[in-house]
């Protein structure tokens, strides 16, 4: 069917194009989301690493500075103890300790000097220089003998050592303060990195939002187009189907009308003419001289031929459309059909159709009669039934028909011949639905209801 093929093609084209667009759109959106997730992860890791590094560096330097200060105190204390102690053994011990502390302080300060931020370098250099000066101030004292120490110790401590010691401590504190400021600078840097990242994130999110909105709009537009398209197609199919039904019901009606005419013509005109012929033959026979046997026999032979023809014409007429359907109504026609089939095949047929009107609409009469006729045909020809029961029941708004047989039965879903399709079509044309219940070996039951548009008075047959 070309129409069907083009419909299918159009539908498939629509599906394919919108599928491509939607795939690309949603794919892009997904990729964008993955990208943003990865970059966010990286930025967070970077910020975290920066934070930790700055803090660790600060702590390390703070620790060193702390130790330097405590070493400084220890150094100054050591020098004081050395100066004030009269016991030469203890003084010697203190001197050794002081020298050792000196080395430790140098090492610590050197270590501190590595990787310094620029502003601190000068301060540390100054501290280093002052420390060397401090050492140089202390250096001669360490060679003093006990009486010198005792005599000049106190004075040295208060005039030389303490001021230098305090200057160094202040210097260290200044460096510590600078360190703290450096920490703040580092934190500010991290914060700016974070802010940059946040801006980036916001921008990406905005892009995703815009992109997603565009995609959603596109999808909705596509879906709506599809819906309109399928709605249009659906309406076309429905219209086509209705058209088909109308056509088929008109076809059925036209066929019935044709049959009715032919049947009437055969029966009333040709049949009547044949009857007249028979009568004339009878008159001719009795008008012949009684003695002429040969002539009588020939007339009889012709008469026999004419009688056969009458039978043929009548059967043909009944086959086309039984006149009782129009002359007497549905039930007499059904009863005639039942008797006729019973006579021909020997099966037992019961018609239960009390209280059914003889004035049913023509289409209903015809439909029921034809369906019953087909069902009887199936029951006798294919199912080999021995009993058939035909029930017709008229109700206020519908007429119910059921035909059941005890034949071999069949599988209704698989074996649907032209006969059954025809029955379904006839019933559907009048707004009913044919139900078939059957199974191999279980007989068959056909039933249907036809709605009656206006109530038909019921009159007992």
């Amino acid at each position: 069917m070309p129409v069907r093929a083009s419909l299918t093609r159009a539908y498939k084209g629509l599906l394919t194009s919108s599928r491509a667009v939607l795939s690309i759109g949603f794919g892009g959106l997904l990729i964008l989301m993955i990208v943003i997730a990865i970059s966010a992860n990286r930025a967070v890791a970077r910020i975290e690493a920066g934070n930790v590094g700055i803090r660790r560096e600060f702590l390390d330097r703070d620790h060193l500075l702390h130790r330097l200060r405590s070493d400084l105190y220890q150094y100054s204390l050591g020098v004081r103890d050395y100066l004030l102690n009269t016991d030469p053994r203890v003084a010697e011990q203190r001197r050794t300790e002081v020298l050792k502390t000196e080395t430790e302080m140098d090492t610590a300060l050197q270590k501190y000097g590595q990787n310094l931020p620029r502003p601190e370098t000068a301060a540390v250099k100054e501290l280093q220089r002052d420390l060397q000066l401090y050492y140089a101030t202390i250096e001669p004292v360490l060679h003093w003998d006990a009486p010198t120490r005792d005599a000049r110790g106190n004075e040295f401590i208060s005039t030389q050592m303490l001021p230098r010691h305090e200057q160094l401590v202040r210097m260290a504190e200044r460096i510590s303060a600078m360190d703290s400021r450096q920490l703040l600078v580092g934190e500010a840097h991290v914060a700016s990195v974070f802010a940059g990242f946040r801006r980036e994130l916001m921008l990406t999110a905005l892009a995703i939002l815009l992109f997603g909105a565009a995609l959603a709009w596109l999808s909705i537009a596509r879906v709506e187009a599809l819906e309109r398209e399928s709605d249009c197609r659906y309406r076309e199919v429905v219209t086509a189907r209705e058209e088909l039904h109308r056509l088929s019901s008109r076809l059925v009606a036209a066929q019935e009308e044709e049959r009715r005419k032919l049947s009437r013509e055969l029966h009333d005109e040709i049949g009547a003419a044949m009857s007249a012929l028979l009568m004339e033959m009878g008159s001719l026979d009795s008008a012949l001289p009684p003695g002429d046997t040969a002539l009588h026999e020939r007339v009889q032979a012709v008469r026999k031929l004419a009688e056969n023809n009458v039978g043929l014409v009548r059967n043909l007429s009944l086959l086309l459309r039984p006149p009782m359907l129009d002359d007497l109504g549905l039930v007499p026609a059904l009863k005639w059909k039942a008797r006729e089939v019973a006579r021909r095949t020997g099966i037992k047929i019961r018609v239960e159709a009390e209280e059914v009107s003889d004035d049913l609409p023509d289409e209903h009469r015809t439909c029921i009669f034809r369906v019953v006729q087909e069902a009887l045909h199936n029951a006798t020809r294919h199912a080999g039934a021995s009993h058939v029961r035909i029930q017709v029941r008229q109700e206020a708004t519908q007429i119910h028909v059921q035909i059941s047989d005890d034949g071999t039965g069949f599988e209704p879903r698989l074996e649907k011949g032209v006969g059954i399709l025809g029955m379904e079509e006839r019933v559907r044309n009048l707004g009913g639905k044919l139900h078939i219940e059957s199974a191999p070996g279980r007989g068959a039951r056909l039933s249907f209801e036809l709605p009656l548009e206006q109530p038909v008075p019921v009159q007992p047959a």
Partner: protein
Amino acid sequence: MSVIRILLAEDHAIMRTGLRLVLERQADFQVIGEASDGREALAQAQKERPNVVVMDIGMPNLNGIEATRQVSATVPDCAVVILSMHSDEGYVLRALKAGAKGYLLKESAESDLIAAIRAVVAGKAYFSPAVSRMLVEDYVRQLQDREIEDSYELLTTREREVLQLIAEGRSNKEIANQLNVSLYTIETHRGNLMEKLNLHTVPELILYAVRKGVIA
């Protein structure tokens, strides 16, 4: 010998001519008129009051069945013999219900018509042998199908006599006279036998009698 006056109602002229020829061969038959449709037949029957109307079942204007119903209603002493192409009992019953006394198949009209007219004039029912045969056969088959007892066996001898007389068209009074019993007795018999046979109207009873071969 009284003359039997006959009206022919048949829409086919050739058939009418043939029937007239057959009828006029009988000395005591007189064809008093011809009609080619039901309305004409009714008008002539009401005007001429024939003994018998030979009525085709399928005619224009007023069909044969309806014409029969109106003739039976308006011309009491007139018997109607139906001419039909159909041997089916649906048509026979319809004709009897309309008041017809005889039912003939057209194909055998030439040989049966005389006998039919003589029978209905005598007050009896008449059916073409082919029709009777078919009615009987169908009835027997139905009895066999339903495997029920033949209801005729339920009737007493007297009831069978009454059945035959009713089917032949006698009135209750005539039957009472003939059997020499009271009218009341006949009415009782009649009620009983109709109940036993599950029949409700005289046409059904006539059909039953034909099926049983009680009458021809």
